[in-house]
């Protein structure tokens, strides 16, 4: 009997262990490469144990740490401020949409849903933001466009729909105002949902380089991901189109393999710390929207 029960379990565990390993391996190898000696990598290829252990690539990346620090600062500000504001707005819309007794529920839902499928396109958006809203080269341009993401709104709405309407009704009978119901009753009840959506939003802000690519030209406002993306993109460009370029481009200045990995570690590091913190809610929240009433 025990065999029958355990065999699938062993299989599942094996599968999950393999999956876990395949997630960790790249990370380990990145760390190892970043600590290796450049020349030995060229000669022997990558390995999981650093070859010629040294911190020179970190020294290279941190040569002028101001740039990295200011990028980190921008990323942190954008992620924290953005997530807080975005959560409030997302929760606000989602709550309203989840209320059966809201008169314009379907048209508002449609409005939200519509923007998920259609948008103004790149150039008109760019013109609106840079020409009319004058948001170019401000920190707000990194925050505002992602404040209300339809997908997250719909996700949170389905979560909130599971909160029984009778709770809201009884509050009303007790004389609570709508705002009070929202802040004192709904938000605490929706905590797991909020945490999940919050995590998504943090990731969205943290991983974004697109907005900064388009709208940021001031070096002091460049976030970390864009800095990283720019570096990788640059290397790719230089190695792939050297033959199209005018002669005399010295490709020896491309940051070494080790430096790139060191940069990746420094950029990804903070997220690794944030993740476990959210994990508690994450499992609960993952079932968001799975069962619909």
């Amino acid at each position, binding site marked *: 009997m025990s065999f029958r029960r355990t065999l699938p379990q062993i299989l599942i565990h094996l599968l999950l262990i393999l999956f876990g390993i395949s997630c960790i391996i790249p990370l380990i190898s990145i760390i190892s490469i970043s600590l290796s000696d450049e020349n030995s990598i060229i000669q022997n290829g990558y390995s999981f144990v650093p070859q010629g252990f040294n911190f020179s690539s970190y020294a290279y990346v941190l*040569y002028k740490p101001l740039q990295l620090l200011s990028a980190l600062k921008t990323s942190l500000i954008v992620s924290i401020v953005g997530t807080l504001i975005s959560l409030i707005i997302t929760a606000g819309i989602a709550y309203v949409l989840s209320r059966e007794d809201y008169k314009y529920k379907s048209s508002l839902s449609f409005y939200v849903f519509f923007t998920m499928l259609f948008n103004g396109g790149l150039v008109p958006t760019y013109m609106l933001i840079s020409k009319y809203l004058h948001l170019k080269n401000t920190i707000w341009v990194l925050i505002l466009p992602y404040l209300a993401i339809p997908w997250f709104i719909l996700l949170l709405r389905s979560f909130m729909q599971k909160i029984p309407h009778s709770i809201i009704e009884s509050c009303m009978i007790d004389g609570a105002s709508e705002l009070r119901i929202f802040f004192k009753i709904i938000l605490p009840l929706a905590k797991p949902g909020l945490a999940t959506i919050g995590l998504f939003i943090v990731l969205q802000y943290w991983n974004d380089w697109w907005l900064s690519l388009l709208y940021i030209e001031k070096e002091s406002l460049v976030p970390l991901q864009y800095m990283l993306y720019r570096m990788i993109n640059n290397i790719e460009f230089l190695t792939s189109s050297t033959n199209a370029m005018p002669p005399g481009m010295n490709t020896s200045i491309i940051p070494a393999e080790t430096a790139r990995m060191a940069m990746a570690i420094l950029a990804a590091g903070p997220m690794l710390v944030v993740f476990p913190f959210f994990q508690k809610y994450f499992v609960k929240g993952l079932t968001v929207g799975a069962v619909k009433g």
Partner: protein
Amino acid sequence: MVKRLKLYKSGIIATIFILMFSLVIGACGNSNNKAGVSSPETTTPPAEGSSSPTPAADLPPVTLSWYFPGNFPQPEQDKVFTEVNKIVKEKINATIDFKPISFGDYDQKIKVIIASGEAYDIAFTSNWLNNYTQNVAKGAFLPLDELLEKYAPKSFAAIPANFWDATRVNGNIYGYINYQISARTPDVATSKALADKYGFDVNSISGKLSPDTMNLLEPYIQAVKKDHPEKALISQLSQIYEMFSFESLAGFNVPGAVSYNDDTLTVFNQFESDEYKKLAAVLRDWNAKGYLNSKERISKKQDDWADAKAGKWIMVIGGAYKPGVASLNSELGGEPYVSAPASKPYLTTGGIVATMQAISRSSKNPERAMMLLELLNTDKDLFNLLNFGIKDDHFGLNAEGLMVPGPNQQGYNPQVPWMFASNFLANVQEGMPKTVWEDTIKMNEDAEPSKLLGFSFDAEPVKGEIGKTSAVFGEFYRGIELGVINETKYNEFLSKMKDAGADKIIAEMQKQIDAWKTSK
């Protein structure tokens, strides 16, 4: 209930209409945009009057924004830009709003800026980044002829007239040339130590290589190979295509070429030419003899100098030959190198339009922008400041006046002299011959101009075919350059090229060339 259903239905219909409408609007918006850019709404005609340079004090202060690509950001770029602006302010009473963009992002970013009609003054343009021909066709740039004569007489005269002709589209110049090496031929480079040891004189093959004469290299390769089986000969198709006796019109990986000696300017498929087939045969032979270490190299998509550093190269045919290239190679390879030109250099449109600045239609101060270009191309100190940073900090000069790295070189070292202005104003680096720029200019002047000088192929009409054929090239090139595919496979490559639309591209090229010929 019925009413609700009706409402629901009409709602659906309305939605469909909205969607269709938005599609139509989207399409219109696109073309409207283009039209918007091409109509010169914001063009201020160049100020009339004074052809002599006006003293700075008489000019009203302006700000000029300048988009350019490069290895940016540099840690101390703001410091250098501030210094540059001090000089520019003094000389032409302008402040440059520097917009350095990293290479990888430049194309995408400048496209959006141009399409949105945002005001800027100067932008880098070329045939490999921020495509010149397409932008001119869109009407994104100002014609420069008048401005050049009026505000940049010195630098206009410094560049040969046939160079300017190469930039002309419908008779007008739209790009300000950053003068640099434009005569193209691949560079044959080998380690000095190796060449000395095996008694190989690189100059003995200088300018003599072609698919027929590749055997000139064999004795040397054979000798090295005997003692160093780990070393290989490197010759990538993407880099040696300029060795052939024809000009590839849309890049090495796209069918369509015109022979340099052909007065009729007939386009043909270079991959089907005898020359190309001969080269493939030579490489096949060399692979059989083991010169290429194909087995090891095939896992990589392309070879890079890291392998040279690791001691895996005998010799490389590739890159572009230019005076002083040996010192660059030595830096890349980590040991002294010797170099020679592979074949006779030719002057092509591609070599000239590779580095240019354009003045935008949306510029409010085109005259001042031109003055700035003139200043950058005539003021050696200013150019070197922008190029190499602050003297004795980012770079230094040794007793002979050659440039050496400064104590703080890492702070500012963008390495793109041809991007800012005329390359020939740059400080000569230590290790290069002192006369390197004179030699380069001479090489430019001595090079035989292609009969197609002034013609740029507009790839837009056959974009799809170009994508497909270059994908086919991508599938086969490594096999060809490593000599591992046999003749049947090569023929398969040719027939796949045909299926991908090679003939259509060639027909389009011929059409454009014929139109260009009559317009001339």
